[in-house]
């Protein structure tokens, strides 16, 4: 199996005392769904930006498509264009990604700046808008869209590039349950039918099984502490507790008042408790 990204003892710091990742070694094979799991501030988003060659490691190395990423290489226009056509990053905050006057301008921005012919740019924009069902939004201004619409447009703006690897930063954050489900279904299809490699940074355990077939877990001290299948990772309560991904929380049980032992509320996340 081809390896798309290979990080070898990679570290990254935003400046003195601002360490974001330390001594991370991992591989991302082509066509796989990989989740980067970690609490807030563990370095997941930074790793996505490193994988998208927006930052370069401050120590260690990062190999993309069998080539070590260096500043000199990224300054080479031919390489930079080839790389950007293969890798797309969907930022966590769509406000960051939607910077153009209209939705259509935002969607054509990528293909246009990657040097595609005007006819193809227009075709791709029409194609992704149909794919995501956002044709009616074409002339709208981005700041007038709902949260779900913004996420879709942000995704469309990256999909128009036709990337082989899609990097997603908290893709379901701030989405309502229906939008979350439809986005997950869409990404699942993208991976299974078009073999697009998905790398998802998240701390939402509820989506890990659907969004990943391999999981890397990051600790709050910015180290990679575990990897495995979703079942292995989600079944390891001690690991999840140490990574601050779950917590043992106190809650009231109706079983004290009722005889059938039902809970006062449903639990969607992973948690531990003793039946009373």
């Amino acid at each position: 199996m081809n390896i798309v990204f290979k990080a070898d003892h990679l570290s990254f710091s935003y400046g003195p005392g601002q360490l974001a990742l330390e001594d991370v070694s991992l591989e991302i094979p082509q066509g796989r769904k990989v989740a980067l799991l970690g609490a807030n501030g563990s370095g997941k988003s930074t790793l996505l930006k490193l994988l998208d060659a927006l930052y370069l490691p401050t120590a260690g190395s990062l190999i993309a498509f069998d080539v070590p990423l260096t500043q000199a290489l990224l300054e080479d226009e031919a390489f930079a264009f080839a790389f950007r056509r293969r890798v797309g990053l969907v930022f966590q905050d769509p406000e960051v990604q939607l910077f153009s006057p209209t939705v259509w301008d935002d969607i054509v921005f990528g293909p246009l700046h990657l040097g595609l012919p005007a006819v193809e740019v227009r075709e791709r924009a029409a194609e992704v808008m149909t794919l995501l069902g956002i044709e009616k939004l074409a002339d709208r201004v981005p700041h007038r869209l709902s949260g779900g619409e913004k996420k879709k447009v942000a995704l469309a703006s990256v999909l128009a590039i036709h990337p082989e690897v899609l990097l997603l930063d908290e893709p379901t954050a701030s989405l309502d349950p229906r939008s979350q489900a439809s986005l997950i279904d869409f990404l699942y299809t993208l991976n299974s039918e078009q073999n697009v490699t998905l790398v998802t940074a998240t701390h939402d355990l509820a989506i890990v099984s659907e969004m990943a077939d391999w999981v890397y877990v990051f600790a709050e001290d910015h180290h990679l502490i575990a990897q495995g299948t979703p079942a292995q990772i989600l079944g390891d309560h001690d690991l999840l507790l140490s990574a601050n991904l779950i917590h043992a929380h106190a809650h009231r049980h109706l079983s004290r008042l009722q005889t059938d032992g039902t809970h006062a509320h449903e639990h969607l996340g992973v948690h531990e408790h003793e039946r009373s």
Partner: protein
Amino acid sequence: MNSDNRTLPSQDGSFRLTPLEMAGQRRRRDWFAKTIEDITGTLESTVFAEEIAHLPGIWQGVDPRAKVVAAIALILAASLGRTIPTLIALYTLALVIAVAGHIPLDFFVKRVWLFLPFFTGIIALPAIFSIVTPGRALLVIVQQPYLAVTEQGVRTALLLLLRVATSVSFAVILILTTRWASLVGGLRALRVPQAFVLILGMTYRYIFLLLHTANDMFLARKSRVVGRIKGAEERLWIGNSIGVLLGKSYHLSDQVYLAMVSRGFRGEAKALQPLRMQPMDWLWMAVGLLIPIIVLTLGG
């Protein structure tokens, strides 16, 4: 449920003011927060809403390139106009175009004339007096030393006011009847440098976001403050808020730049060539260009 969320029902069912509301009544309204709120509201309702630009008016259907050229030509005509009748004719033309573009006339006239006294009026006012513009006295204010309002002075001030009002009117028509994206596209097509057009587009996009952030910051503070705040404390808080907002906008600009680079931006902005102009668009542009020529031919 209580439909008026500002008041809570008392036990006897009557509505009374909440303690917070009573405190609010005693406090004069935070002028800085109100200013930001008003700026956001005005921008949102006039510039960002683009309601008039979506109406099916004659002017709305014209290609933005033709509109930008015609508007510039008409503004030029107003600058070339040297007599009051010429400027009145041009202003009347602006009113006709506004009506044809479904712009509510009272809104349009107020929008131009309400601000005029504050900006141009202050500059024009000294010109009416004899010390600036000597001439036939219309009204003598003081005999010794001599100070009067002169006919020539009034004419000069009126010319200036009319010229500015007419120019502003054409600019307002262009902005109100054109969607921002089309306006930016029009500038792009007229070979305005891409970097300038890109920055203009992004300024428009993010000024809205940052104004909302500023509003949210004021609301967040308001929800935690009861009673009157001292002037010094208020100024300190405003200073801190400006700093925080600057930090946020700096971070945002950094992230936006990364998002652009991620999609292939390498310092050179590119744009798709817009669609071809229709015969009607050429006609509008020609009419626009003809007017300053007529004004020049008639000697202003």
